[in-house]
């Protein structure tokens, strides 16, 4: 926190919820979100790639066993839900789960730790949990949305896709209604996907900030909330992954 500012509760909260930005207007970049999410992703995925390149079919090491357990768990979820052939779905599910889980886990770092540390170095603002930035959640959900639409066209063909858009669920006679329903359904998908994650993490972070305002009382409160929050961190990562798989399976299976 920059010194000299009056330390009011609202100033404290607002400070914690302000991104480190560069640029103006639309071309503003949230450097904190981009850096934290990028670093976490690079460490996790390059680490996993290095490990996978040394993976043996023989007796696995501890790290390999752990990563295999994780990816085979995700692969099982994909196999249970998605019956298409796209080789993209399992890697995408793995990416989503691991990445979102790690970014959510940033919530467990005490709220003042990173901003204060960087404040000493002269960085005025730093929001350390990238999933509390709707830009990230929308970035992911819109990417998922694009993949979903492309997959729909690829699997069903243009004609099949359009047929489904205009005839499901009420048949060809009510084509405009079907189109409207389809539009609402498909637009709702990325919005609900991103806002669910954003809302949960934002609210969780907010509670951490409010607890941090309580002075000594934060000691007995922060720990239970952090423990409880572990559930939310994992659950939200799992839900994002699972819904993505479900959307992919809906895009590649005909429902009419």
């Amino acid at each position, binding site marked *: 926190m920059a010194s000299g500012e009056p330390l009011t509760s609202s100033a404290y909260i607002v400070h914690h919820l302000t991104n480190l930005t560069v640029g103006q207007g639309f071309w503003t*970049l949230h450097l904190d979100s981009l850096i934290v999410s990028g670093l976490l992703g690079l460490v996790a995925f390059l680490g996993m790639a290095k490990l996978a390149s040394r993976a043996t079919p023989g007796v696995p090491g501890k790290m*390999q066993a752990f990563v295999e357990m994780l*990816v085979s768990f995700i692969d099982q979820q994909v196999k249970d839900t998605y019956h298409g052939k796209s080789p993209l779905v399992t890697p995408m599910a793995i990416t989503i789960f691991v990445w979102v889980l790690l970014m959510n886990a940033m919530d467990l770092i005490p709220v003042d730790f990173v901003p204060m540390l960087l404040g000493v170095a002269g960085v005025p603002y730093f929001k350390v949990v990238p999933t509390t930035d709707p830009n990230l959640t929308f970035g992911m959900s819109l990417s998922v949305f694009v993949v979903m639409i492309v997959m729909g066209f690829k699997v069903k063909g243009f004609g099949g896709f359009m047929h489904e858009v205009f005839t499901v669920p009420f048949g060809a006679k009510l084509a405009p209604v079907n189109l409207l329903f389809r539009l609402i359904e498909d637009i709702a998908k990325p919005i609900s996907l991103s806002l669910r994650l954003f809302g949960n993490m934002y609210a969780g972070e907010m509670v951490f900030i409010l607890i941090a305002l309580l002075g000594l009382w934060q000691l007995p409160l922060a720990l239970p909330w952090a423990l409880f929050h572990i559930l939310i961190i994992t659950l939200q990562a799992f839900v994002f992954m699972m819904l993505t798989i479900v959307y992919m399976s809906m895009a590649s299976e005909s429902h009419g």
Partner: protein
Amino acid sequence: MNINATLIGEAIWFAVFIWITMKYVWPPLAKAMADRQKLIADGLAAGERGKHELELAGKRSADALRDAKAKAAEIIAAAEKRGAQMVEEAKLTAKVEADKVVVAAKAEIAQQVEQARAELRGRVADLAVAGAEQILKREVDAKAHAEMLTALKQEL
């Protein structure tokens, strides 16, 4: 909550990480896991096969043992029989040989008796002639009495 170009940046990060996972993380891990699954399945199958073979070998060895025992018993019985037969044969040969020896001895004895008898006959004739010479005290023509003496010899 303001949407801006960060969204594009995050979408790019997302795409990059999906690409890394898709190219370098998932395929080798999936392959390693599938290979291991095959390895374990093969190992279990080999173990099962080994167990089965062991069972078969046990059965075969028991069979061989039983056969060997039967054959040994057979051989011993045959040997015993042959031994008895040989003893019997030897006995028979010995008896025949003994008989032969006895017969030969008897024949020799008879021959010797005959020889002694012939010798005696000759001597008896001489004795008779000498006795008659003594008794008659006169020239007796041996030639003239030879016929008579030969007749006497035959009587003996």
